[in-house]
């Protein structure tokens, strides 16, 4: 069996992943839990799965993080 992580990631399809619209809907709440170090991935595993699999939404999340923290 192959151990090529990049290919494994490319073909990632987590059944918990709710898609972009649902992840965007919760992104603000997820981000504040993230900033509070309150394990958002446990409360919102679907959003966490989506951010791992969707580069576009992950980029929006990084932007939101920068906007909120002033980074």
């Amino acid at each position, binding site marked *: 069996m192959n151990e090529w992580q*990049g290919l494994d990631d490319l073909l990632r399809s*987590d059944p918990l992943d709710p898609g972009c619209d649902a992840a965007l809907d919760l992104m603000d*709440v997820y981000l*504040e839990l993230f900033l509070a170090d309150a394990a958002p991935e446990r409360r919102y595993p*679907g959003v966490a799965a989506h951010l791992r699999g969707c580069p576009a939404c992950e980029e929006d999340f990084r932007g939101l993080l*920068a*906007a909120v923290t002033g980074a």
Partner: protein
Amino acid sequence: MGSAENEGRAGDGGRGGRSMDAESARWVRALSADGEAYEEATGRLHALLLRIAYAELNRRGSRHGITGPELDDLAHQAAADALLSITRKIGDFRGDSRFTTWAYKFVMHEVSSKLGRHFWRTAGVQLDPEAWERLPDRLGADPVRQSEARELVAALREAVDEELTERQRRVFTALAVNGVDADTLAAELGTNRNALYKTMFDARRKLRARLAANGHLPLTTARRS
């Protein structure tokens, strides 16, 4: 794909169900008002959103290279459309996050969307015929196992040709193989990021099943935090 029904904003999610903070409540009152109070609030919010739009465009600057009047146009368009979404949806805001956090996510979405449309208009979606050959490097294949990586890519390419619908093939080839930005492809195909992601999700499942059946990959992905 999963459902967000069990990950709603209410209940014990968000900020533990605590009440709306005072600043957020002031924004909601002002944006739900009429007349002068509403005009003042939207003006103030627009200025804030515009500052965030510029900051986000600058943060992504090394990837888009847009400057000057074009950058100004994008920032103003993103801020204006974010403001429109916010004022339309203000009744949905329940204080699960701070108002500004909630509002800024609309700016992020609009910046992504505007950049996608900009690149579609100015450059279109360019597919590189040699992108498949470069896939092992792009996906960080171990240099000492290039032969195995090329074999896997060949198996993947065959699965793309044989397992996917025409639309799935087009979307997968653009996003996964060529690294095209999702919002740019969405603009070209006249769709949105969410619909493209659903297409990609289904394509990935088919391809993984095929590669797993042939012993190339495990059927399920190793979860990473």
